[in-house]
């Protein structure tokens, strides 16, 4: 079947999936170009896995349709299955089979396959080739799952949260593997809730929340959409301790002795409770007045200023802090990230606190 654009390998067109009254995926549209790493990024429950599984033909959409390499995933599922490789989020494999055996078994399901030993070598599993699956580490099991997804030399590889639950080193190894797949021209669809992972690996990011696409662009463009290239972070423990003890004094007159300097650090831990207080709102308004600040955010006791004029913002902030006696601590500046984009768009963090 001819495609309108020969470069497009996946088309998701208004995909909808409902579970009872709950709509897990609510009208998802996107296109994936050949050879790109396409990231589905969002918190748990955003609908990433359900979207992937509708494209893979594992779930029947309640609305819309998906095409892979021009084949409809419902009407031509057999053809779709031949050209895709799938690593599911929670697959376990037969524990009592050897790595090479299980790879050979999966290879037997396809008409077109790649040689097994070079494939396992590529996934850094050649040493474990004759070992049982149950004796593999978490990272090795995940690499085996990817090897099985590649055994038919697929056009598109689907990796559903491949690094979740892995230690940092195993995560890095996996990133290298994904980047190597990209070098070889494989199209990869990857879901993750790690924004750093999406940033490093993906050419295009589809930011999802509550079953919908909230943004779809390159990582650089997404960050640029914040209109602030930098974030300034700092804490104000003394000021907040003072606010808090003022609140405590208002609440109970006998609480005076707790307002000492030593309790300042402890007080900051639950400063979130005071964020709705008049003093906090006042502070927020004051921070917004600083030069260059586009938006103000707060994560636990850390204040974040987003700015496109870092130098002006820093100068003003320090002057203000000195004149108001804020006792600024833990000051940091960094480039804005995808995490900031997500928070900016949803008001919530990617990771559940």
């Amino acid at each position: 079947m001819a495609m309108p654009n020969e470069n497009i390998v996946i088309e998701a067109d208004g995909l909808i999936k409902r579970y009872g009254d709950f709509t897990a995926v609510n009208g998802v549209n996107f296109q994936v170009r050949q050879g790109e790493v396409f990231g589905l990024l969002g918190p748990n429950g955003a609908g990433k896995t359900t979207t992937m599984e509708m494209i893979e033909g594992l779930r029947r959409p309640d609305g819309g349709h998906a095409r892979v390499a021009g084949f409809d995933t419902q009407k031509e599922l057999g053809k779709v299955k031949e050209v895709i490789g799938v690593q599911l989020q929670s697959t376990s494999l037969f524990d009592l089979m050897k790595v090479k055996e299980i790879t050979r078994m999966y290879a037997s399901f396809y008409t077109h396959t790649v040689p097994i030993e070079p494939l396992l070598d590529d996934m850094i599993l050649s040493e474990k080739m004759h070992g049982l699956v149950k004796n593999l580490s978490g990272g090795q099991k995940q690499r085996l799952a990817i090897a099985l997804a590649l055994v038919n030399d697929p056009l598109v590889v689907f990796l559903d949260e491949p690094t979740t639950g892995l230690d940092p080193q195993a995560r890095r190894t996996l990133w290298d593997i994904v980047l190597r797949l990209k070098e070889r021209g494989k199209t990869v669809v990857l879901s993750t809730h790690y924004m750093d992972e999406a940033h490093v690996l993906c050419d295009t990011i589809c930011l999802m929340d509550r079953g919908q696409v909230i943004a779809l662009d390159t990582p650089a463009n997404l960050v640029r959409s914040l209109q602030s290239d930098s974030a300034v972070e700092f804490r104000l423990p003394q000021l907040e301790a003072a606010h808090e003890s003022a609140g405590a004094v208002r609440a109970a007159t006998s609480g005076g002795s707790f307002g000492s300097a030593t309790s300042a650090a402890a007080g900051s831990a639950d400063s979130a409770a005071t964020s709705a207080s008049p003093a906090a709102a006042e502070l927020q308004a004051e921070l917004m007045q600083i030069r260059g600040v586009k938006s103000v955010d707060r994560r636990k006791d850390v204040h974040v200023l987003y700015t496109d004029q870092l130098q002006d913002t820093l100068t003003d902030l320090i002057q203000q802090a000195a004149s108001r006696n804020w006792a600024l601590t833990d000051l940091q500046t960094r480039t804005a990230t995808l995490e900031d984009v997500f928070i900016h768009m949803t008001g919530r963090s990617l990771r559940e606190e």
Partner: protein
Amino acid sequence: MSAYWQLTLAQLKLFIRNRQVIFWSLMFPIFFMVMLGSFFSNGNSISLSGQVIDQDNSAESQALLQAFTGQTALELKSADNEDKALDSLKKGDQQLVIIIPQGYGQALAVTSAATPNANGTAAQVVAYYDETNAALSQIGLTVVAQIVDGVSKQLTHYVPVVTVQNQGVQSLNLKYIDFLVPGIVAMMIMSNNLNGVAGQIASWRERGILRRMQSTPLAASTFIAAQITARLMLNGLQAVIVLLVGSLIFGTQVNGSWALLLLFVVLGTLAFMAIGFIIAGLAKTPESAGPIAGFISFPLLFLGGVFFPIKNMPEFLQPLIKLIPITHLTNALRQVMNVGADLTALWPEATILGGWLIVAFVVASFTFKWE
């Protein structure tokens, strides 16, 4: 190699590498056989013992005592403490206590002296038995009744006019183990397939193994065909091992054709595997598949004549017993092994098992889910 053979091979490897499964599905029936087999291995007789207490000490009572202790069907010994004897009966150390009461001789003298037509009071012998062990007690009481009857007839100079000559038509010397081994093979086929398939498929589904396969071009029919092939091989092998152990250790007989025996092993495997697939389809979680399978297979074990003859089962259960597949599998295996029956005699069993197989596979194909 094709997907079908790869999957078959994988299933065989999974089985061989899982020592626990090997143990429970192979050693368990063998242990069962060895245990029950040695228990009942001393010939045809069932061990039954008791005591006879002579409280009369007359010539007549001595003669009766002789008659009791002199026979071989029961192991009866003379004793003199009634309380002690009854006590050990209650404890189950013995199954019978017979008491020849005081005045037996005198009563006997009076009755036998009277004319044959006179309605004199017969001399009495008291037999105590343990009614909680009904089967054994019944045999014991029958033997006691026969002995008393014999003595009675002797004393009255009774001459029988009609006699029965007992002769087994099969002219086979069958022991309990010959009855037991086909039952154990049937039990093994049922539990391996019904419980085994239900548990395994439900667990593979839960762990996402089936979903992963579903995302490949593999056809469900290929997957199921490979399952069937691997299990047929395993069951055939297991049945042969159990039969070999039976014949080597206990001298179990296989009087019929091995091919026919194998045919029924195959039929039974397929029928129970299909039922296992249904249970796997119905069970919501792998944890519930086990109990559901157990709930079905455990009663079948007792109703299906695996350990006890079906005719000993209560009347109201008979229609159910006639319906369930295990009954027919057990019966067919037993007929082939014990009596050497051929297919012309066993076509009803083959038909009923075949019926179960077809119905169960149709139902299973509707209830089977990859996820």
